[in-house]
């Protein structure tokens, strides 16, 4: 069995990747993907912890939570993509740095 630390490290790396994406990438779709990555980091964490809660047993609580989270994540992505679509209609681009009429 893979020790839990590997999972945790992966989760943290995933989180970092997601945040990096959000801070550096200009494409709206990439940003939405980054949000998915962030959620996945948390989900991975949850799943791995629930599997390691007791040796040989799996805590159902984590799974319940992750299923819920995935559902909600899907909703968020749906809404996000809709908005991105409209943004593309208004701005003609997917570059998020062009969305800066609102500032100061």
């Amino acid at each position, binding site marked *: 069995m893979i020790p839990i630390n590997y999972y945790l490290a992966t989760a943290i790396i995933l989180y970092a990747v997601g945040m990096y994406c959000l801070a550096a990438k200009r494409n709206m779709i990439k940003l939405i993907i980054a949000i998915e990555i*962030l959620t996945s980091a948390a989900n991975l964490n949850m799943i791995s912890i629930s599997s390691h809660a007791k040796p040989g047993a799996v805590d159902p609580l984590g799974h319940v939570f992750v299923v819920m*989270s995935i559902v909600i994540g899907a909703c*968020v992505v749906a809404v996000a993509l809709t*908005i991105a679509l409209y943004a593309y209609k208004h*701005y003609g681009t997917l570059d998020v740095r062009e969305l800066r009429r609102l500032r100061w």
Partner: protein
Amino acid sequence: MFTWPINLLVIFAITTPLVYTLGVKASIKKLVDVWAVIGFILSAISFYPLYLKVSSEKVLIHYWVGIQFRGVALFEIDMLSIFMAGLFIFIGLLTAIYSTRYMEHDTRHGEYYALLLLMVSGMVGVAFAGDFFTLFIFWEVMCLTSYVLVAFRKEQWEPIEAGFKYLVMSSAGSATMLFAMSILYGIVGSLNFAYMHKALSESVTPWSMISLALIVVGFGVKAAVTPFHTWLPDAHPAAPSSISAMLSGVVIKTGVYGLIRVMMLLFTPESYHWHTAIAILAVLSMTTGNLMALLQSDLKRLLAFSSIGHIGYIIFGLSIATVYGLTGSLFHVLNHALGKALLFLCSGAFLLAAGTRDLNQLAGIGRKMKITGFTFIVGSLALAGVPPLNGFQSEFMLVLAGLQVGASRNLWYLFSALMLINILFSVGYYLRIIQVVTLHEPSESVSRVKEAPKPMLFSMVLIAILCILIGIYPGPFVNLANQAAQSVLSVESFVKLIIH
């Protein structure tokens, strides 16, 4: 299932589209508006017995899945929850009444009211939540609906741009929070607040520290604490004014609620010593908000920045973490919700009448719309902390609590002084908008405006009267806030209901 107030909201939210279709078919235009208002009213009515019950029993436990499942999926309702939830429903009700006329010229009313009802039910759920599982679900309900509501007028560029920024930042925040929850789950093995309190206060580890930081960021983004606030000045002005009133008035308060609940219950100040860090965030927030608000020429954007300032005051109360500080904090939650909702509703009335949010073009509009102008003055002065209006009552309590705690933690003298200076500074722009709106000679663009319609006036005047009433006779309202603060601090009674 979810207790009656939430149930009713959800039921009405689900039925609204149907009623809308019915209304369109039967060409009774106002049917859906009335339906939504009825939903809020019923929810408010059903809220009252709950309030009575909680005020006698202090803490109430309710498993909303119907079975006890390891302290998960439950509501744990104490006075703090009641205080916040009552506020949410009340402002929601007024917003709904206001919307009946304000959203007249929009389409998709069924969608609009369903989202509004759902958003309030989400907020009430957050306030009631007794574990992270519940909290996360309702949190996301609230977030999702608010994303859509901000981008409701999708045919314009502004709500879309603001909506996208809001969505990205807010979901990044939610994801961060989720990450923190997963770590906490690893440490504690449960998602229930009571178990977490027990485990976290017993041992302070780097992991729990990390999760503290992550969770502060998660709630901080929602509450628009500097430096996590940058979505707010875009999203709040872009939304329809009724939604701005909701967002600025109460939605950001869920973030505050989350912070208060988590910080006081889970990461107890005795173990985690986060006072100074939170106080620094508070001072940062108030300074940023007030500085940025000073020169705004867009009325709603100015109000949005001022919300950040007020969140700073509220967080400052949390950083004190005494009963006085929390009372002030919660009382300010109430007062700011009223004042800011009022101002956004007023600015909506102006927007509807004159078609602009630009201060220069709104000059003198208060002279034409006398009642709206008057309520606008009341709201501005209330938020400026000018007695005898409500904003003063809570601001003085916050400073007072800061000074009291200063005797043992000397830094708080400085923070209190900074807060006082900030309040003073903020008076500058409140006065400016009052002057522009009510004292200037009416400009051309407002020469033919008429007074706002009655339902809108009803909401505004009611809030204005409340602002004055609380200012003059704060006693009962302070008591409510004080009870809420007491229940936050009586952690043990909260915990012992779960862990016998």
